[in-house]
Structures are given as C-alpha cells and as structure tokens.
C-alpha cells in the first residue's frame, strides 16, 4: 500500500524535525555552548522518517553514534536528547551515556552503540524476545555501509535468518566509513547483495526518496510481522557534515559532494509535496514553525538543567543492593 497523503506529511514532519534539530545542534556547537563529539546525520533524514511511520511504540530500534535522526524519528523527545547531549541530569541517560549511547525505552530506542556493528546482535536479541513471547514487535537495526564489513553484521544476519527473527537490517549507505570510500573498504557496491548469503531478501533503494524507502520497509516489516524472518534493506544516501563535527571533508571528491547536496532529501521532498499538491507551502511552514518551537523549548530545557551529581558515579553500575 503506497503511503497516504497524511503519512507523507508525517514523513515530512519527521524529516524537518531531524534537519532543523541538526542545524541547531551545529549552531550551538559552533557557538561553544555544547561540547561533544557530534556525528551529524544531516542528509540521511529520509530513511528513519519513512520507516518509522510504519512502526508502533511497541516496535524497537537500535542505532549507532550517528543516530539522532533515528531517535527523533522513533519519538525520543527532543528535550531529553538535548539534555543528554548537554550532559545534564535530565537527559535520557542522566548525562551518563552521551551522544553515542542514547537509550529511551519508552519510544523503543533500546540501544545506541559506539562500537561499529555491535548493535546488530543486540537487535537480534530484541527480536528474539518478541518471538519467544509471541509478541507483535519488529526491530529496526540501523547501521552504516562500513559496518557491513565487520563480523557482527555477518553473525547477526545469519542468526536472524536461521531463527527467522523479526528484524529489519537497515543499512544507511552514505558511501563513506569515516574517511574511507565504499569501494576502498567494501568488496561489493550494493550491500544488499549480501542478503543472498543468508537466504533472505535484500533490496537497495534511493535513501533520499521517502516513497521508495517506505515501500521497501513496508514489505520487510510485513514479512517480519508474518514470522517470515529478517530482511536487509539498503538505503543509499549521503552525510553532508562529514564523519564527526569538525571534519573538513578533504577526502570527499568535490563533484560527489556537490551532486549529493543537489539531491538533498529535505528540499527535494518538500518541493515534491508542494508540486504534487500533497501540502501547501504554508502548511509545511506551519509544521516547521511548530518544530522550531519544540526545539527552542528543548534547548532551554537542556541548558537550564543541572549537571548530574558526582554520586552518580557510584550508581547504575549494579542494581541497588536488595533489588538484585
């Protein structure tokens, strides 16, 4: 079933939230008001936006250091994210996790890892739990193209296939792993061809095209919910802000960068919605305005929040005595 107009607008809203939020993070870092290693996902917003509209609160995601877009799309409240990235006691993880380790179970964000590939086995376990308990939940396991070369990828896809786990492996292929091009690190051009090695469906889509991502995700999620097991969904995209904040991107060929920017998913989708009469410019502006307000509130909330107490160093290592 193709995405309805309502769904398309919701995808837009999520993309806009991700984009505007990213802009604001960067301006705050540049202003010296936030200090942290920041892995911007600007350019990749379409992928989680288009997938997450197919999910419920019961469904899980796992993601990576470059995961703020995944979290916002899945529903982590911006103010909790801001507070976490500002290292405040009011953050998702009381400031103890930081940008690479956001967890927010209420919205289904179960784990964010800084170790390439490591959230894929964990995603299998989330899917396993749903399967063991007979619950209707799927897991979206987000990872990068570079991660498809690490052992955990392979073990996870095989395990998920053998056990028919309800996991959708989403490779956000932004063509770079840190400074290494796809070709220099990965023996195949399309990660999706690896699916055949596990006897599962593998498909590559334009990760900047919400409809393409939506359609492919819909089929993969359908399979997973039907008990038919995992799929590998590769979404080709680009990251506009390099690997980590401060990355000057000398290693990115200029024409490749220019072409990617010309294909920026946010204006592209916005323009398409207007051109196709799905929404008017004014309607989208209104969405953007609400988002600006939400982000403003998040920034204020975070900056006004206290830092965690030093006693936190002794807490959350083990369960409190008596509870275990």
């Amino acid at each position, binding site marked *: 079933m193709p995405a309805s107009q309502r769904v398309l607008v919701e995808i837009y809203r999520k993309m806009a939230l991700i984009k505007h939020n990213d802009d604001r993070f960067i301006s705050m870092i540049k202003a010296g008001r936030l200090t942290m290693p920041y892995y911007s996902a600007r350019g990749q917003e379409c992928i989680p936006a288009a997938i997450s509209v197919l999910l419920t609160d019961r469904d899980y995601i796992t993601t990576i250091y470059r995961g703020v877009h995944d979290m916002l799309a899945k529903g982590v409240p911006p103010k909790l994210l801001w507070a976490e990235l500002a290292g405040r006691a009011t953050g998702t*993880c009381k400031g103890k996790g930081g940008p690479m380790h956001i*967890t927010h179970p209420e919205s289904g964000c179960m784990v964010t890892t800084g170790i390439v590939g490591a959230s894929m*086995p*964990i995603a*299998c376990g989330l899917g396993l739990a749903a399967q063991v308990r007979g619950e209707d939940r799927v897991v979206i396991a987000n990872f990068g193209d570079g991660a498809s070369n690490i052992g955990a990828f392979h073990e996870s896809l095989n395990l998920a296939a053998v056990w028919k786990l309800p996991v959708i492996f989403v490779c956000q292929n932004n063509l770079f792993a840190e400074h290494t091009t796809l070709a220099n690190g990965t023996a195949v051009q399309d990660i999706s061809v690896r699916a055949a090695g596990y006897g599962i469906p593998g498909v590559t889509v334009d990760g900047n095209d919400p409809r393409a991502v939506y359609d492919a995700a819909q089929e993969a999620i359908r399979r997973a919910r039907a008990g038919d097991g995992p799929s590998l969904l590769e979404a080709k995209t680009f990251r506009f802000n390099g690997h980590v904040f401060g990355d000057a991107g000398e290693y990115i060929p200029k024409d490749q960068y220019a072409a990617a920017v010309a294909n920026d998913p946010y204006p592209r989708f916005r323009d398409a919605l207007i051109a196709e009469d799905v929404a008017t410019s004014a309607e989208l502006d209104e969405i953007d305005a609400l988002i600006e307000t939400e982000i403003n509130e998040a920034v204020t909330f975070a900056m006004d929040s206290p830092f965690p107490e030093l006693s936190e160093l002794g807490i959350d290592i083990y*369960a409190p005595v008596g509870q275990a």
Partner: protein
Amino acid sequence: MSQTLVKPPAKINTVQAINLAIADAMEADENVIVFGEDVADLEGGGIVKVTQGLSTRFGGNRVRSTPISEMGFVGAAVGASLVGLRPVVEVMLMNFTAVCMDQITNHAAKLRFMSGGQTHVPLVIRTMTGAGFGTGGQHSDFLEAWFCHTPGIKVVAPSNPADAYGLMRAAIADEDPVIFIEHLPTYWVAGPAPAPGHFVPLGKAAIVQEGRDVTLIGYSRSVHDIRAAAVNLEKSGISCEVIDLRTISPLDMPTILASVAKTGRAVVVHEAVRSFGAGAEISARLHEQLWTKLKAPVQRVASKDCPVPFSKPLETGFLYSVDDIEIAVRTTLANA
C-alpha cells in the same frame, strides 16, 4: 534425563547441579531462556551435557542451539535481557570469550550505567575452562581477571555442586550480567546435593574451614587444592582457615578481612597465570587494609606465566601443585 534430577539424590556432581539449577529457574520463571552451541537435545544437550533435557522439557522456543557465532548470540542475549528475558547462554570454553569480548565488556557490563539505569542486562554467561585434559593453549585459560577488571559485570566460580546450584540460581535471579565459570576437570566430582531452591548469594564468600594460623583463599578448582593442603598442614600442627570466594568480583571484603585480621597471614591461590591475576587485587587490598594486622606478606600461588602447554608433563608443571600451596604457607609462617 532431567526427570531423574527432579528429586536430587544425596550426592550429585556439578554437571547435574547446574542442569538442575537451570531447570528449576526455568520452571520458576518463564523469562529464563537458554542458548549456545549444541545446547539443545537434538545436538546432545551440550557437549558436556550440562543442558541435557532442557529443550525436551521446556521446548525449542526457550532452549536453542546456535550457529558458531558467539558475538551474535551473546549480543542477542544482551538484547533479549534488555527487555526482561533472563538468558543463560553458554560460551563453550572461556577462551572463546575473546571472540565476543565486545558484547560482554563494552555492552553487557556498561548498558545499565550508560543508559542511566533505564535498562539493564540480567544475563548469565556460562563458560567452562581448566587445564588437565590436554586441550592446550586455546582451550584451558582462566581469564576471570579480564572480567573482574570490568565494572558492571559479576564474576562467579563455584567449587562444588551445591554451590554451583545455589550460585546459578542467584546468578539467574540477579539483575546484572554474570560470568559463571565452570571448571571442566572437576565437573564430575560428586558432592552433597543442594536443598531444593537453595540460593547462594552473589558476593558472599564461604568460610569452608575455620583455622587460626593462616587464611587460604581460593575459588573454583583451587578450593579443592587449598583444602588438601590444609589437611596436610594440619598434620604439622598448622591450622588453616579456608575461604571459598565463590564470587570473585565483587569481592566479599568483609569476610576476607575478618579472617585475615584474625590469622594475620594469607595465601591466595588460583589456576589463572600469576601476573596481573585476580590474586594481585586480593593481595593489594589486604596489604592496604590490614597493614598493622598482617604478620607476613600475602603469598600468591598460581599457574606459570605462559600459555597452557599441551604435553602432559608440561601441563602438570604449568599448574601449581598442592605442594606449592604448602610451601607458600610455610613461607608466610617463617616470616616474623
């Protein structure tokens, strides 16, 4: 098979004790699931048969044999535990923890802290080890020190069947990840059966034998050896207090300190290689905390600082001997 275990006989071995503990935990809590290589009955119920009968009794949904993918299935256990299952997974031999170290140390151990307490990892990783069967350099190492140095994970190593039962029950009930070290060469040594539902709290050492002159501290295999040494030394009129740590991390310092404060002397014994082993931490803490009470420096007895050799005489020479323990005790006693 597990049927015959429902009513435990007066004596059982550690294989049976752990089997029984897992079975009882699975019976009591449907969140307990089991997986690992060859653990289901179609595959023989585990290569040492520790999990025999479980898949037949509790079904293939809860007890599964896995591909050879320790990173994959230990990670899956982490994931399942994040949402409330209580996986008991088998990493067949302790050396294989090296292929899934990242899931154990960077994830299982840290997720409670990094999530600010929102999630936690009630996971038991069973693993066996121990030299003596000629399996050589990659199948016999005691690596508990790696995990003891990793805050967030608990390290347990029973020395007898009843404790194995009680510690396994406690480990499965624990809200945090536990590395549960089983000693292959003493798997089949019989001992008194545990009472049904017997729990041995994690983090509590046992005074196995009271004594006056010196405190002998061990865990896993070494408890057998320090007990043997204690019997021999008794004949020379040396009275040993014997402590079985049971949990290596976190250490039960109150019990250890009380004993050594009393005897004034301590010998720590483990099968792991000596240098940078768990014994060093115990020694360091004793000196730090009992400086005025210690009558002699704490002695360590451990395996030689080399990989585990294959050839029988070398393998035997690699391991410490009961003699080594006795010599260490006499050395501490020779001191002022």
